[in-house]
């Protein structure tokens, strides 16, 4: 039985509506998962939006909608933007994947850019950052700096990106400190300051003196500051207000060049569907200033590691690496391919916890 239907007539009406917008001024829309004031993920997307708008000096208008849940509401919010005349729409969370594709089907003349997903179409691109490169630098510093040999990790939702980050940080901490142990707390949320603060405290009370986070608020930073003798890293955003201690460095998502690039392509009429996965080399992943709380030699090593990745000389997932169960994942000298990284759902050997599912 075929109950599936297409909004054929509506789609025609819609594309007529958007075609009326001339190239003089284009509109770029943004769909945010959180508030721009989260200080992390959404904050950086919003910063990039503003910088992009400033860069085009009046030629580009931007609109955004915040706190869009990853539910049926997302599809409507995206449709609303397309109806409102947006020429390019950036949907900045994984859960917007299917809604983005569904709306894209109805608006063939609007360009869509979905962050962190894997499904594309003629008018849908995907983009993401190789955060795990930044995690390698963090892991190195963490392994060198820990005195208790216990590193706490506040994890959000068990998806490949987060698991990749844990593995990358662990491998590079282990490399410089064989005794290092990881304690991982899963919060199943990207943003909940009270939970993040509690989790940070629980990790610290269990002996961790380094806290890594894959959640977006600065609450763990504040908890670490209160505890003293604990170091942290900024996540998604620099979180420089907690430098020089507890925050000793950070991973910064810098979406500005990408947004300028993509909007320019729309202005030029050269936009095509692409799959972008950039890291330190293009500046999409930035390493925030390493503060003086880190000894000079450790800082130099960390920067060397960063430069090696930027130059493409070193890949954080280079064998020999075993999976958690002891089976071989990468042989000596073998480098992980993007396909297996994209779907990573296992821990590497040495991590004692289990991937929740």
């Amino acid at each position, binding site marked *: 039985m075929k109950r599936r239907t297409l909004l054929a007539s509506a789609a025609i009406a819609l594309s007529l509506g958007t075609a009326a917008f001339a190239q003089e001024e284009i509109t770029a829309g943004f769909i945010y998962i959180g508030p721009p004031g989260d200080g992390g993920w959404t904050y950086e997307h919003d910063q990039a939006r503003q910088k992009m708008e400033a860069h085009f000096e009046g030629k580009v208008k931007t609109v955004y909608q915040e706190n869009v849940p990853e*539910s049926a509401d997302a599809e409507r919010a995206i449709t609303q933007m397309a*109806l409102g005349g947006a020429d390019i729409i950036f949907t900045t969370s994984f859960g917007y994947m299917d809604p983005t594709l569904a709306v894209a089907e109805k608006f063939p003349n609007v360009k869509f850019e979905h962050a962190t997903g894997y499904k594309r179409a003629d008018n849908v691109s995907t983009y993401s950052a190789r955060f795990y490169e930044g995690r390698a630098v963090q892991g190195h510093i963490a392994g060198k700096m820990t005195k208790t040999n216990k590193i706490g990790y506040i994890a959000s939702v068990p*998806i490949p990106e987060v698991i990749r980050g844990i593995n990358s940080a662990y491998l590079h901490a282990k490399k410089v400190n064989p005794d290092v142990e990881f304690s991982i707390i899963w919060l199943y949320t990207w943003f909940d300051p009270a939970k993040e603060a509690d989790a940070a405290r629980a990790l610290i009370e269990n002996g961790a003196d380094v806290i890594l986070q894959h959640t977006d608020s600065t609450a763990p930073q504040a908890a670490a500051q209160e505890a003293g003798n604990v170091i942290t890293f900024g996540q998604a955003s620099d979180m420089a207000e907690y430098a020089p201690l507890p925050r000793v460095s950070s991973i910064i998502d810098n979406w500005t060049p990408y947004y300028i690039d993509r909007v320019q392509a729309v202005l030029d009429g050269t936009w095509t569907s692409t799959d972008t996965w950039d890291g330190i080399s293009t500046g999409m992943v930035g390493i925030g200033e390493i503060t003086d709380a880190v000894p000079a030699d450790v800082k130099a090593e960390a920067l060397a590691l960063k430069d090696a990745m930027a130059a493409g000389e070193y890949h954080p997932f280079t064998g020999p690496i075993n999976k958690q169960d002891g089976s071989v994942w990468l042989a000596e000298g073998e480098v992980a391919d993007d396909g297996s990284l994209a779907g990573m759902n296992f821990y590497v050997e040495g991590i004692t916890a289990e991937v929740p599912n």
Partner: protein
Amino acid sequence: MIRLEKRPQPSQAWTAGSPLLAVLLTMIVGGLLFAFLGADPFETIRTIFWDPIFGEFAFYYRGQLLVKAGPLILIAIGLSIGFKAGVWNIGAEGQYIMGAICGAGAGLALYPSESVLIFPVMVIAGALGGWLWAMIPAVLKTRFGTNEILVSLMLVYVAQNILISVSTGLLRNPDGMGFPGSRNFKQWDAAHNAELIAGTGMHWGVVAAFIAVIGAYVLMSRHITGFNIRLTGEAPRAARFAGVNPARIVFFCLGLAGLLAGVAGLFEVTGPAGQISGAFNAGYGFTAIIVAFLGRLHPIGILLAGLLMALTYIGGEAAQTTMQLPGAAIQLFQGMLLFFLLATDVFTNFRLRFGTKGVA
């Protein structure tokens, strides 16, 4: 000296008039709020209340109104019957989630069959899931006298955790590259709750909502069970003398509410939402409580209140994108609407008396 005097009978004029007055007051105070936030109040009010129905893109928004109002009405109808009986189920969100999980789970177990029976099986499983989740507070209340407000509410958080767990585990899409979320029902025709007429927003959940409105109307005004429910709520002791079994009323009310919330969840997850994911629920179960009260616990009232609430959501989102108003302003606006309705409601049962000091 102003005081309230109880009317011998509820005023007909005020019953109809007070919601209109409340909407008007909300528009005025809301307009002031929007002006304070730097937006043109008239344009904002027009964006919220007028454009979705009559504006340029109304062909899209009218359908979305039904999509948004459908689950709200369906859940609110179930809740209102319980509220009439004094059974305070405020955990419909949990029943909604469990219905979606059970229904979707039953369907996914049969993937990728294209049998015509799949969708009906899923609907039944969804209804059962919501019903069972509501039976927990019902059993605890009748067996141990445990407060159903709190149990049903706590179970929302439990359901939320189950939802996250299954969307990253049991029901996770095996072809989903390790990301959370089930298969997308929109890509599986046999299980897809598609629009019945393209572009109208009319899916099975909306149909079910209309049936529920009619059913509740008949039940409450024509059927002995409806009479017993009202009696239990208004005069529990009299109900007992009349031979009404209070436990049976609790089971009936919670069960019905759970069932309706469960199918609402199933229709949502197989239709507009498309998949089980950690955030598909979007708070419908809580908003439905407000809808039930806005509609004065009356089926027709709930139908209108559901549509009105949907309008403020959709218009509110439009005001966010086109006028860049913060989402919180819309939330506040909805709260005001409820407040003003409750405030003006007093005139249905009471009249104002000026001057003479009473013996009260």
